[in-house]
């Protein structure tokens, strides 16, 4: 089976500056790939290359089995793209704009009508159908941008920071929409909001200074994030050797004489035994909280390791 998106050893230079360094990945149907990275990491450049807006210095991109360089028109036919700034003709109404987009994509008049109807509903734009895009709020404009990308029901949808400027309710709706679309499309979603990736994506990859430094699927990632850890605070220093011999306890991190981090193996739950031990030690247990490693932590450790 051919991949919906296949990127192979992609390089891109701006003058002497290398923005994308030997990037390879693929996306299949039913996958939502979260594309993470700090500012200036090369996310937008990569997405521009995949959508044919920018030529790569070296490397190969294929969309739905078509080489983007050799047969750009066939490749672009299965592509929907929302750039970081939504490409909107502000002097048109939402309906006029979407009609134009549908025509550009080569849809027939009858399909355009039904496509616009479903897309307006999907993006919650039905109420602003006849308004000029220039008069819409930023959030609505962003949604028109998303509507434009999914209008022609493309196999591959590429969204560059789609939830920027939306209010929390809209963000929730759009995330649900992306998850829904992800069932039968291939989606790349670039963002720097990590919770967004946790909520919507099936795959995660982190890019830093043009290099791919992390790639994993989300369930696996969530497991690594839930590595067991307890934060303990006591009045008097506890006896750590007694704690270490308890079953499933891996190691103990001493933050200060009265503060500890106890790491243990999942899915075991030694919290009760630890508490009992501490109480018998009479060191005055003050606090015992589970520590969750957030995606931010993983992100920070990864990007710092590489800089």
């Amino acid at each position: 089976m051919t991949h919906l998106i296949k990127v192979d050893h992609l390089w891109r230079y701006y003058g002497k500056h290398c923005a994308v360094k030997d990037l390879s990945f693929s996306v299949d149907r039913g996958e939502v790939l979260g594309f993470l990275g700090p500012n200036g990491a090369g996310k937008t450049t990569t997405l521009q290359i995949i959508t044919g807006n920018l030529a790569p210095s070296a490397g190969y991109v294929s969309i739905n089995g078509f080489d983007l360089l050799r047969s750009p028109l066939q490749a672009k036919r299965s592509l929907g793209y929302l750039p970081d700034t939504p490409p909107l003709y502000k002097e048109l109404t939402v309906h006029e704009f979407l009609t134009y987009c549908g025509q550009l994509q080569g849809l027939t008049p009858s399909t355009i009508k039904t496509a616009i109807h479903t897309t307006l509903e999907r993006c919650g734009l039905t109420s602003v159908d006849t308004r000029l895009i220039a008069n819409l709020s930023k959030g609505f404009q962003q949604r028109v941008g998303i509507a434009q990308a999914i209008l022609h029901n493309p196999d591959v949808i590429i969204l560059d920071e789609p939830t920027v400027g939306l209010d929390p309710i809209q963000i929730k709706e759009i995330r649900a929409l992306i998850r829904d679309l992800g069932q039968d499309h291939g989606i790349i979603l670039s963002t720097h909001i990590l919770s967004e990736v946790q909520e919507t994506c099936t795959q995660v990859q982190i890019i830093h200074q043009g290099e791919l430094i992390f790639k994993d699927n989300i369930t696996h990632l969530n497991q690594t994030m839930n590595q067991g850890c307890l934060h303990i605070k006591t009045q008097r220093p506890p006896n750590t050797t007694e704690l270490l011999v308890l079953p499933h306890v891996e190691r103990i991190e001493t933050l200060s004489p009265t503060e500890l981090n106890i790491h243990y193996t999942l899915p075991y739950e030694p919290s009760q035994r630890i508490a009992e031990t501490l109480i018998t030690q009479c060191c005055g247990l003050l606090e015992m909280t589970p520590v969750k490693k957030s995606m931010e932590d993983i992100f920070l450790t990864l990007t710092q390791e590489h800089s």
Partner: protein
Amino acid sequence: MNTTFLIATREFKSLFLSPLAWTVLAVLQVILGYLFLTQVETFTLIQTKLVAIEDAPGLTDIVVTPLFSNAGVMLLLVTPLLTMRLICEERRHKTLSLLLSAPISNPAIIIGKYLGALGLLLVLVCLISLMPFSLLLGGTLDMGKLFANILALVLLVSAFTSIGLMMSTWAEHPTVAAIGTLGILLFFWVIDWTNSVKDQRSELFEYLSILRHFQKIQSGQINTIDLSYFVLLIATFLLLSITCLANERLQK
């Protein structure tokens, strides 16, 4: 082919959504109308004297030809304003990526934009042509010469538009595109003026001069040299625009 016309109609409609097109149409119509009336006035004043002269210039020579020459000069100044935003504005507003990531080839984008802008200028030429046609109410016109004038003006604006489109594709900023276009147009306009100063004539400069070819067609001598000059000029600048747009993807 379909998408070419789609882009052309969109561009044509968009031009009329901005006040620019309306202003240009209004201002040009007023000024050219005034010039037209003064020519008609001159004709009525010297009409009696003309009768005496054998093989005298007629109504068409005195009114129509100067009107179209003036229109040519005015359009030289105005076309850059109408073409400056074609591609430039799309790039600045980031809407270009809508066209670039849709299944449309670069030539289709360029030719679509060209036809769209040309549409507006052809409307202008039509409006200008209405003035001499109004003379038919009370006089007779040399129809052959009138159509030669219209053809000359159509070819002239077609060439102007292709140059403007190229500059708009190339420049980062609309004003830069406008000034650049004006520069190139003026250059093609005055390129053979050195010939009148010095005795020596440069055939190359004479051939390149857009004014010379324009005047030749205006005078009613329609021949392949002049027609092919315009066709070559338009094709060259359209091809340059297409390459320029293709280079967009290579930006360093």
